[in-house]
């Protein structure tokens, strides 16, 4: 015999609870008399056209802002890499000419060591460099030994 059946056999299924006479006959009357007025479902507010589209406008503005920023960063990175002396000199000159740049201020911003390193690492002669760049080096750089100079990184000659 299952444990549940043993319990039911000995204890039955009447919990022994009673209610006052006529309790359930009057229960509905008591409950109904305590009810508040019929509850109205909360209405959704009437939204104006602007309130409806506002989230979408904000979202579109956010994406447009992100697109503009990405475009700007892309343009800036392209410009900065084009003006880098590590680019092929032909490309650099072409860019400078097309943009109407005067290259001398750019070179003057480079330290003597950087300029010497670039020239000595990439050209066999100062003449080649000057031909490529259309730029005549100042007499103070005439001592650069091109094609034979080997320099350690960050260690000026």
């Amino acid at each position, binding site marked *: 015999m299952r*444990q549940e059946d043993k*319990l039911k056999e000995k*204890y039955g*299924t009447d919990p022994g*609870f009673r209610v006052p006479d006529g309790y359930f006959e009057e*229960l*509905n009357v008591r409950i109904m008399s*305590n009810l508040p007025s*019929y*509850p109205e479902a909360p209405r959704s507010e009437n939204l104006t056209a602007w309130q409806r589209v506002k989230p979408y406008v904000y979202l579109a503005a956010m994406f447009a802002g992100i697109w503009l920023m990405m475009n700007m960063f892309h343009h800036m990175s392209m410009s900065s890499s084009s003006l880098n002396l590590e680019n092929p000199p032909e490309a650099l000159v072409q860019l400078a000419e097309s943009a109407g740049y005067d290259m001398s201020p750019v070179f003057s911003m480079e330290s003597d060591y950087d300029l010497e390193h670039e020239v000595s690492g990439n050209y066999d002669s100062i003449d080649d460099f000057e031909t490529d760049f259309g730029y005549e080096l100042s007499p103070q750089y005439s001592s650069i030994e091109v094609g034979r100079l080997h320099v350690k990184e960050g260690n000026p000659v």
Partner: protein
Amino acid sequence: MIYTAPIDEKELVKQLQNKATAAQAFDTLIKKYSQPVYWQIRKMVMNHDDANDLVQNVFVKAWNNLHNFRGDAKLSTWLFKIAVNESINFINKEKQRLQLSEDSDEDYLLNNIEADEYFDGDEIQKELQRAIAALPEKQRLVFNMRYYDEMKYEEMSDILGTSVGALKASYHHAVKKITDALLS
């Protein structure tokens, strides 16, 4: 217009959600479900006065939330769910008010049954109620629903939000604890 109480539950729900017929439909709802809801609460709080207050609270709460009832569950399941929540909240509040510890359901319920003038069970019935009061809350709920009302596990699952497997395990543990306490 003469109101006719609907037999079909869907029709009753429709009338409950119509302002013009809601009051009469709700009266029908109370007549239909007040007894099972009352007895469910009574077995949980073990005292008529508290059960009387709680059953009224349950129906007032149901009335106030008629617009939230979507008809996915049965009306009885919805009402039992409210009744279980109300009863558990009530017991916890009473324990706090009486400054009893969290796990003192047994003391609270035994005091309730002793003080209840509408308990006329014999010593055997009182013995079983004492054993039920000693069960953890969830097992006590499951035991009452299954042992006294033979409620289906699927309906219990909807009311208590617990899987059928977990409910079967709870009932098994509850029966074993009571059998060990009373029959061994």
